[in-house]
Each structure stands twice: as C-alpha cells, then as structure tokens.
C-alpha cells in the first residue's frame, strides 16, 4: 500500500470519525434527555448510541493504523498513546492522543459498567465532553483538508449540532434541579408537570 493511499485513508477515516463521534455524542445526550428516535423503541436510543460508539472506535483504529504504518511521516505506536512526544507535529498529534486516551477510559468503563456501579461509570463518562472537542481541535490543527470548503461545512455543522444538544441538555438539568418538593408545592392551581417534562 503506497504512502499516498495510506495518507488518503488517514484523512478519510479522520473525517468519518468526526461524523460518527458527533452522532455518538448527540445520541448520548438523547439518552440523557429520555428522547425517543422516530420509529425506534426507547431502548433503541441506548443501543444505537452503544453500537455507533463501537463503529466509531473501529474507524478510529483504522485512522491511527494508517498514520502509524505510513512511512512518509514519523508516527509511532507510542505516539498514539503518549501525547506530545511525537516528531511529527507534536502539539496537534498530541491532542489527538489525549482525545484517544480519554475515549479509551470512557469505553473501558462502559464495558465494565455493571461491575463499577453507576456513580463511578458516570464520573468517567463525563470525560467524553472533553474528548470530543479535543479531537475536533486535533483535526482542525493537523488536518490537511482544513482549508477545503466541504471540511469547513462539515466541521461547522458538527460543532453547531453538539453545542445545540449540549445547550438543551444543560437547560433540562437546570429545570430538573428546580423540581424540588418546595417548588412543586408552590403551584397548587395549575397542573403539575409530570416526570417527562
């Protein structure tokens, strides 16, 4: 496989990872919001979130493999797990490595979820909200396609989607924190909102 093929493979899988992990984040937020996807039962949201995260991980593996195998740039397997030590673009590559390390923590704790208990699992899962933007910045900084129109549109769409979803999620959490017994009692005249609000 020529270096050029590997290089294209790396860029392509990188773009696919951006899309897939964006969808995974959106689905994770959908689960948190108790959202139903059209046509799917409730457990469909969770199942899709998990399945796609595994697919995204598979593409990420290809993305890393293409970079490591490619002889044209000096990226070793060590650079994939230890950040900021590479010869090639240590900062931007290093950010990718950080994102990978965080994602691995999320992935492994999710696989061991039942054994770890909900509190531990949840604490680590929050790292996903750090991993995604770090991976995004890695892509923008190191990416060969950064200047191209299609890449710009793709990136902007993904950022907009995640920001919007995160905003809704935060608003939901704030509203839920206000649903104390005191607050619920203060509205005796109008119908009280149910759990699905």
């Amino acid at each position, binding site marked *: 496989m020529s270096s050029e093929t590997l290089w294209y493979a790396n860029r392509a899988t990188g773009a696919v990872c951006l899309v897939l992990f964006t969808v995974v984040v959106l689905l994770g937020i959908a689960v948190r919001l108790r959202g139903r996807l059209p046509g799917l039962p409730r457990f469909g949201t969770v199942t899709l979130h998990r399945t796609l995260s595994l697919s995204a991980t598979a593409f990420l593996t290809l993305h890393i493999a293409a970079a490591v195998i490619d002889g044209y740039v000096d990226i070793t397997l060590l650079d994939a797990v230890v950040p900021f030590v590479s010869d090639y673009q240590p900062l931007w590559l290093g950010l990718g490595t950080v994102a990978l390390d965080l994602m691995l923590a999320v992935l492994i704790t999710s696989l061991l979820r039942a054994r770890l208990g909900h509190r531990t699992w949840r604490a680590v899962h929050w790292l996903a909200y750090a991993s995604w933007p770090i991976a995004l910045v890695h892509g923008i900084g190191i990416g060969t396609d950064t200047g191209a129109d299609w890449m710009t549109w793709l990136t902007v769409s993904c950022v907009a989607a995640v920001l919007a979803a995160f905003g809704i999620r935060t608003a939901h959490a704030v509203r839920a924190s206000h*649903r*104390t*017994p*005191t607050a*619920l*009692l203060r509205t*005796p005249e109008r119908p*009280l909102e*149910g*759990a699905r609000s």
Partner: protein
Amino acid sequence: MTATYTDIFMPPRLLAPGGAPADFATHERRYGPVSYGNPAQLLETVGQSGLTGRGGAAFATYRKLVSVADAGRRTGRAPVIVANGAEGEPASHKDKTLLQLSPHLVLDGLQLAAEAVGAGEAYLAVEAGASYLEAALAERRRDPLTVKVVRVPKRFLSGQSSALTSYVSGGAALPQHQRPPVRERGVNRAPTLVQNVETLAHLALIARYGADWFRAAGTPSEPGSALCTVHVPGREVRVVEAPFGMQIGRLLPLGPTGAVLIGGYHGTWLPASEAAQLPLTTTYLGAGVLAMLPADHCGLAETARVLRYLALESAGQCGPCLNGLPRIAAAFQALATPGPQGTTRTDIARWSGLVEGRGACHHPDGTVRLVRSALTTFAPELDAHARGFCTATTQTPLLPVPNDRT
C-alpha cells in the same frame, strides 16, 4: 422545655419524678452501677424481656442485635452503633426530654448494646443544640467505647436509619437504597446498629434489673412501657411514661367528640370515642405522639397543614414520592376548603396507591396512612365541606408544623 407532670401512670422507670436532669452521681445513686463484660448474658436477657424498638418500627431489639453481631462476624468488620436521638418528628419531644433528664441511662444502654454486637465505634445522633451531652459524656469514666456526638440537620427524615448512617459517613442526610440493609452495610460500609435512644435507656435498666422486672409492666404480648408525648389543647406539652395495654382514654382527657392523632405525622387519626378504649400498643404507637383534636377544630385543615409539611420534607430523590406527595397535599388542601370537590377524592386515592412502597424509605407509606385515616375519621367533615360549610368554630392551628407558611 417540656414539663414532666405529676401525672404518673406507673412507677417511673426512665424519667424519675422531679423533672431535673440527673448528673452521673445522681444516676448511679438512683439506678445503681452497670457492669460490662457479659454480652452473651445481656443478649439472652434482652431476648427474654421482649423489648422492642421505640423509634417507630417496634422491631424486636434482640433480633436486631443478633443480626448486627452476625453481620459483623460474617463480614469481618467491627460493627458501628448509632444511638438515634434525632427525633425529626415535630410533635415528638420524648427523645429530647429523655436525653436532657436521663442522659446516662441512654449512654449506659449505648455501651451495653455496643458490647453486645461487638461494636468498634459509637455515635450519638441528635439535632442541633443539646450541648449538655458533651458535659454528660465527660462525667463518665468507665465507658469501653468513646462516643462521638453527631448533630444532624433539622429535617423530618434526618433520623431515618439509612439517612443517618449516610450522614455519619460524611454524606447527605438522605435515605439510601437499602440493599443491603443498614445492619449489613451502614456507616462507612460496616454493619451498623441504629437504635432509638429510648430503646437504649430501657436496655440499660433491663441489664440491671432483668427481664422479669421489665415484663412487670405492660401485657404478656407487649411487655414494658413507652414514653409518649401528650398534646392537650390549652395545656403545656407533656412527656409521660405509660405501660403497654393502658387505655389511651387514661392518658388523655377524651370526651365523646373530637379525634386523636396517635403515633405522629406518619400515624393514625381515630375518633375520640374509639381511641378512648384503645390500649397502648406498638401497632399504633409509632413515635409515641398522642394529640387531642377537639371537635371545634377542623381535622381536615389540620391534616392539610401536616401533609404540606410532609410533602416539603420529602427527600426529593424518588420519583413517586416527589411527584405524589405535593399533589396529595395540594388536593387535600382543596378538601379542607368547603366547596365542590370534583375528582379530588379519587385523585388522592389513586396517588396514594402510586406512592405506597415505591421509594427508598417509608415516608410515602406513613403519609398515606395519615391520609387514609383522616379520610375515614373525618368523613362527616368531608360531607359538610362538600355541601359548602365547615363544622369547626375555630381556625387556630393546633399541631406543630415548623416554618408553617399557611
């Protein structure tokens, strides 16, 4: 300060007459010294005495001690003992009074129970204040275990056993999912004995005088005595000691009309005529509150105020309780107001069924007990309200509700 009257219903046990706090010297003079070093014998005596818990659940104390001791042996972790004097029930003063007047009985019982289960740590939980406890502890020289006084937040649920162990462990004073139960995994994940302070005081006397002495009061099936907080309108609130089996009509000046709240805010309303004949029994005792409601007060309005308080005191963790109790309280307020009732009664019945048994603690269950007994006992008043008028002649609130904003 709650006065202990000269109304004596039995030879005093826990609260000696005179109403003055007993320091350690007075305590030893009155009751004699207690001896440690024979936990197996104590367990046997407690079993024979038939002592049950005075925190509301009336669980057999012997079985509780044995299960905690067993859990300690099984897990290899030294148990923890927590003496529960939190008394979050607003109408109940018995634990505070006991701790103020006879603290050394409680502290003796705490050491004895700790020895019986093999405890390595001891805590005494109270609400804020009660600085005399540290003074009482300082007087004691022969205690095997050091007792740490823990002051819990002033909330209704602070004394719930898993809320208490959570708070002592450094967490929030909120009920926890009890699987495994607190007796297996409580304070810092060690098997924990949570025992009401009155139970410990009885235990301290049983250790001195034996099971037969304890059974000399009460009935064969319900031996012993209990502290009750008695609320009579126009009189100061009193804490009295009464034997099981004594008719409630002897503890309260009941007439043919009116109602009585027995147990506390998770208790039962009964018509005065029915309550007068009722013997004091663990089935109804609850937190030991006996509150008279004369006929010129509206029982529905009183219950509505209490229900509002109970809804506000929900921990807010469990969906059914968080959703159900405020709705029940608001609906009951509608019933307490004369006028058309619409679907309110069926709504309350439905929500009551939905909150029962669906939570981490028994707060919704106790609330439902109060609601159902109120709907039964105040049925004539409900009819009157539905027809647009109230039979009560006074609006003065009677039952104590903290921070009442009605």
